[in-house]
Structure formats: C-alpha cells, structure tokens
C-alpha cells in the first residue's frame, strides 16, 4: 500500500467503522432489552417526508453553529464546555433586544446578531480571562458559567417576561423584523430559515481563518505543541482569550435562525441542549468545517427520524442518543487506532526503503 492510499483509507476508514460500531451497539442494546430492532432501523432509514427534510436542514444548521463554536477551542486543546450557557444567555439577550424593536426592520436583525455575538463572546471571554490570569481550568469554569447563565436567564425571564397563561416569554419580535425563509416544498411543510445562512458563512469564515491566516496557524500550533508554539513566538495567553471570544461569539448565533424564522420570542419554545450536541458533533467531525457539517446532518437526521419511534415502534426516541454517543466514542477510538496503524506502516515503509538502499551496494560488492 503506498502513502496516498494509506492516507485515503485513514481518512475514511475511521468514520465508517465508527458508524458501523454505533449501529451494532445500538442494535445490541435494543436486542437485549427485547425491543424490535428491525422496525427500529426501518423507521430510522425510511425516506424523510418534505416536512422532515426541512426540519433536518434547520436543525443541522443550528447544530453546525454549535459544533463550530466548540471546534475552534478544541483546535487549540481548549475545552469550551460552556457553549450551552453562552448560547442560552445570548439567545435571551437577543430576544429581548429584538423584541424591544429599537431599530427598524432589517437593521433590527443586524443589531440583534451583533448583540448575540457580543453577549456570547463576553460570557466565554470570562472563562478565557480566568484561565490566563488566574489559572482556572476552562473545563470547570465553563461548567460553572453554564449553570449561572441558565439560572440568570430563568430569574430574568420570570421577573421581566410577559405572562402568557402557563408560561413566561419575552416580547415577541415585530412581523417586520422576522425572517421566515424559503419553502422548497409546499408552504405547510415549513421553510428553510433564512438565518441558516449564518451557518454557511461561519463555516466558510472558520475554514479561511484556521487554514489561511496567521492567527489560524498560531492556533493550530498552540494546539499541537504548546511549548514549540511558545518558542516560535506565539502568545498563547492572547490566543486562549481570542479563541474563547470567537467561540462564544459563534455560540451566540446558534439559536438566531429559529428565533427569527419561527419562535419570535424566548420562552418555553427555546431549544435546550444544542450546546452539548455541538461538542459531540465537533468531535465527530474532527473540528473541520466539512466533517462537522456531515456530522451535523447525521445528528439532525437521527433526531428527526427518531421522533415517531414512540408512536410507531413503541420505544423511546432517546435511543438515538446511544447511537450518537457511540459514534463519537468509536470515531475518536478509530482515529487513534488509524493514527497508530499509519505510524507503524510509515515506520515499516521507511525501514524497507532503508534496507533496500542499504542492501543494494552490498550486492554490488559481492
């Protein structure tokens, strides 16, 4: 096997094997619990209806944003577990700002995007500052900040929100500032939200930033070998804070497509948990925009297709979380094994080459 072949196999073998492992484990769990495995997979793999396609694309774009927020930290070994809190706080602030209608029409949307990014960045930046100035591990501080953010939003919502019978919400956004989107199918099947474009631009922007700028190079260097990066003049502390700020700013965007496309206020319809899903998807996609996009689609597909499981097959839709968790675990294990295998294969190839070179002159002598 030559070097290119090895690389191709290395890139594709791991995700495929991981998916197979996850499917096997899920089937095993279902079998052990005496649940109908065949029906489960038939439901999961049945072609989605137009309505489901729309949902999958909308969900995938939000998951993608969340995963990119986590990914930029991961590229420099910075574990921002706090995406959940950052986007909760930012979504609330965005809904309040947009609902107040300080700016007219489209300007309101631009202003809201700015507010959401600023709030998310500030909350994440706090963890970054604590890390570089006081040496507090970002894993712990972001977990604490998650809990604080969610509690703060709860308090604020209860105190300042509008009471609508059985729940509380922020002031709904004016019709003029909503961005419903584009319906690829019939209108009743729903629309692809306009602000899903945020996901596209973040994906492109991140690719450019990481691969084509000095900042991105420094970021990757700091992640791969911190002491070497420091020796070559990378200011790691500044990188940590910048990475956290960018991460938080992206986290602020996560729920905006849904806010302007459908919800129009922050309340009981707010979608929780996207931050944690994003961490898993970032790991699945190896923190690269293309990989993460594929991962986001896969997770959105699994979530959407699992919805009718309770009704049709009589098992809990949360069973797909087992698949999702095992995909992530299996893919990192598979990448590690592939890395070890590639390293040995390269060493062997090098050894063979050296031996042939070494042995040739000897043949000449004899």
């Amino acid at each position, binding site marked *: 096997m030559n070097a290119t072949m090895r690389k191709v196999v290395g890139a594709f073998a791991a995700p495929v094997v991981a998916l197979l492992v996850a499917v096997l484990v899920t089937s095993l769990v279902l079998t052990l*619990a005496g649940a109908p495995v065949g029906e489960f997979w038939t439901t999961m793999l049945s072609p989605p209806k137009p309505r489901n396609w729309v949902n999958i694309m909308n969900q995938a774009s939000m998951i993608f944003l969340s995963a990119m927020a986590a990914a930029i930290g991961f590229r420099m070994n910075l574990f921002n*577990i706090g995406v959940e809190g950052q986007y909760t706080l930012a979504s609330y602030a965005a809904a309040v700002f947009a609902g107040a209608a300080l700016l007219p029409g489209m300007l309101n949307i631009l202003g809201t995007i700015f507010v959401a990014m600023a709030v998310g960045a500030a909350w994440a930046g706090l963890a970054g500052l604590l890390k570089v100035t006081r040496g507090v591990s970002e894993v712990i501080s972001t977990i604490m900040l998650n809990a*604080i953010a969610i509690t703060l939003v709860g308090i604020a919502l209860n105190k300042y929100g509008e009471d609508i019978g059985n729940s509380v919400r922020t002031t709904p956004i004016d019709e003029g500032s909503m961005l419903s989107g584009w319906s690829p199918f019939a209108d009743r099947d729903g629309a692809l939200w306009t602000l899903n474009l945020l996901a596209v631009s973040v994906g492109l922007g991140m690719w450019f930033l990481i691969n084509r700028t000095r900042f991105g190079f420094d970021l990757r260097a700091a992640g791969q070998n911190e002491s070497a990066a420091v020796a070559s003049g990378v200011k790691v502390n500044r990188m940590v804070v910048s990475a956290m700020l960018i991460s938080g700013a992206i986290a602020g965007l996560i729920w905006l497509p849904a806010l302007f496309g459908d919800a129009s206020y922050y309340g009981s319809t707010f979608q929780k948990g996207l931050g944690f899903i994003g961490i*898993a998807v970032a790991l699945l996609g190896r923190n690269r925009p293309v990989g993460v996009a594929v991962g986001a689609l896969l997770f959105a597909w699994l979530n959407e297709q699992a919805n009718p499981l309770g009704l049709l097959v009589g098992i809990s839709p*949360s069973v797909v979380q087992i698949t999702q968790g095992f995909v992530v675990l299996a893919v*990192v294990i598979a990448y590690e094994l592939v890395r070890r295998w590639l390293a040995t294969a390269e060493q062997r190839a090098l050894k063979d080459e050296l031996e042939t070179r070494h042995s040739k002159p000897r043949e000449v002598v004899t």
Partner: protein
Amino acid sequence: VSATTSTPTKKVMSSGGYRRYQVYFWIVAALVLIATVRTITGAHDLDSQGAIRAAIVATCPILLAALGGLWSERAGVVNIGLEGQMLLGTWGAAFFTYWYNPYLGLLGGVVMGILGGVLHGLATITFGVDHIVSGVALNVIALGLITFLAEAFFTNLNSEFGRGGARQLQGLAKPVELEGIPGVSDTLKAVGEQHIWFVSDAANVLGALVSRVSVVTILVLALVPLTWWLLWRTSFGLRLRSCGENPAAAESLGVNVMAHKYVAVLVSGGLAGLGGAYLVAGSGFVTGQTAGRGYIGLAAMIFGNWRPLGALTGSAMFGYTDMLTFREESTIHALLLLVAIGLAIFAIIKWRGGLVKAASWSGAAAIAFLAWYLLVDSVPREFASMTPYVLTLLVLTFAAQQLRMPKADGQIYRKGAVG
C-alpha cells in the same frame, strides 16, 4: 500565574497533626459564623435540625461523585463522565430495588456505574482517547440509555413495590433509617429549639447526625476516611497515586500502571453509580434526576484540592445551598449576609498571607454582597441554587494557585512509554 512562586506552600504541605487540628478549628468557626448570622437575622431555618438533615442528604450524592473524581484523577484519569455514571446508577438502583430490595438496589447502582467506568477506562486507558472527549460521549450515551431503558422496563410496572411511568418509578422501598439514640436525640432536639447562640447550632448538627439517619448516609460518610486511608496509608494507594503523578517513573519501578488506572476508574464509576443510587433511595427514580451533580462533584473535588476532606467540604457547601433553595425566602436572604461575612473572612486571611490583590478583590465582593443584603428585602429563590457555582468560581479565582492537581492528570499514557 506569577503567584504560583510567591505563594507559601508550607500551609498546603503541612503535617497531618496540624491539619487535623485545623479541621476542628474550621468546623467550630463555621458554626460560630452561622450561629451569629442566625441570631442577627432571626432566620432560624439556616441550621435547624431539619435543615441540617436535608443538607446532609443533599451533600451525599455530590460527595460520592467528588470521591469518584478523586479516585480517578489521583490515578491520572480525568473523569468528566461522572454525570453519566451517576445516571446509569439511578437506573440500576431503581431496577434492582423494585425487583429485589433497596440494598441490592444500591449494589445495582454501583454495578451500572462500574459499567460506565469500564467504557471510560477502555476508551482512555486502552485506546488513549482524550479523557474529556470520552467523558462527554459517555454522558450522552448514559442519558440516552437510561431514558430508553426506563421506558422499556418501568412503564408498565405497578404494584406494592413501586409505581412506574414512562420516565419514572416511584414508591420504591427505602433502606432502613436509624431512629436515633434514646435520650440523646430528644435532648439534642430540645436544646436545638431553644435558639441559643452556638449551643443550639451545635446541638442541631449533632442531632441531625444521630437521629433519623439512613444507614446509607452513614456508609457514604464513612467512605471519606476509608478513601483517605486506602489512598494515603497503604502501598496500593501510593502506587495508584504514583500513576497520576509520574506514570513513567511508576512503571520503571515495576508498578502495573494500566491495572492501577483501571482499578481507579472502576472504583470511580462505582462511587458515582452509588451516588445515583443514593438519589433513588431518597426520592425514587426520575429520568435525568442527577441534574448536573456529577459535574458539581468534580468541581467540589477540585475545590477540595484533590483530597478527601477537601472534597467533603466542597460537597457540603454545595449540599447546604442546594437545601436552602427549598427553604423560605427570608432564609435565602440571610444567606447573603452569610456569604458576605464568609468572603470578608477569606479576604482577611488572604491579606494576612500577603496577597493584597486577592484580598482586595474578595473584600470588594464581600462589600457587594453586604450591600445587596441591606438593600433588598427578598431574593429570588433561584439565587440560592446559583450561589455554589458563583462561590466555586470565586474560590477558584482566588485560590487556584494554591491548588495542586496530580501532575500527570489527564495525560494519555501508553504502556511501555518509558522505553
């Protein structure tokens, strides 16, 4: 970061005898503080016997997670999957309690937690996956698994042993509760209700410890000295900790690093599983009832400087404020004054230690809390549940430089890496 060098390390490293004396001093100091705040504010529920009992019950699951984190991190494996292992424990405990009895239920929780530990161990120790990654995946898997298993196994249960539902199993049998010591318990209760400064407070704490205690609580509290003894007073413990400090050196001395890491992670999972089981023994099974206690346990352990007694202190702080969320709002208001005085004392200690910057910051925080206490009459109930997170952040901010985690914590080690 620069403070690392200037911080006197002799306090942290001080000998056992000195530290033991210190413990009693701090317990008394905490009681004096609470007693004073209680007398000033009249919020007697701050440490009524019922409140202390509730605080102990709230502390135990967090403590178990913290001890779990301690075991695993002392062997160099970061276990952020504690939350998942606790969740697995809740299901195991509910299943075995329903079909057998509450004691096998505890065991079931432990076994399910250990299963989670096996998964984490395989990923991190054998396959060299990043510890945080594996833990995050484990948490996702565990939540999915127990939700699915609960729906599959508990939905149709309905008998004298428990009432099931799609996401719950209630009315389970509970482990035995010890009534108390005849004579002593009643006296302590009577003294506690007199609201005498310090005397009543001490009586309430003692009373809560000796009357109407679950046997499981006693077992859990006993795990603190047991962990200390096993890890710091046996050669097994020394070997285990050496894997977390310098695995290469340990292996060169003939320690089976992989085996010790596995033992640590399995014990860790088992303890977290027991934490889940404790929750079920107290209030039945509900899907996702751990509500982040695994993460809190991790924070409590770091707060406690990777030591058993420290972990107990951190967990008690979380447990105490967790209990307060269910009390009257006036009690939560009094908590503000408690926090303010606590921060002020912390500031004085820092100032006397020569750390002017830390002292002024925590002093400022103390004044802010005092102002808040004086300016408002009531505090949102959610505030109490937020306090431990804010306090942990503050303490880590001012004391992170004095904390010392195991040197090779979170690093991936491959067998034979020493060459």
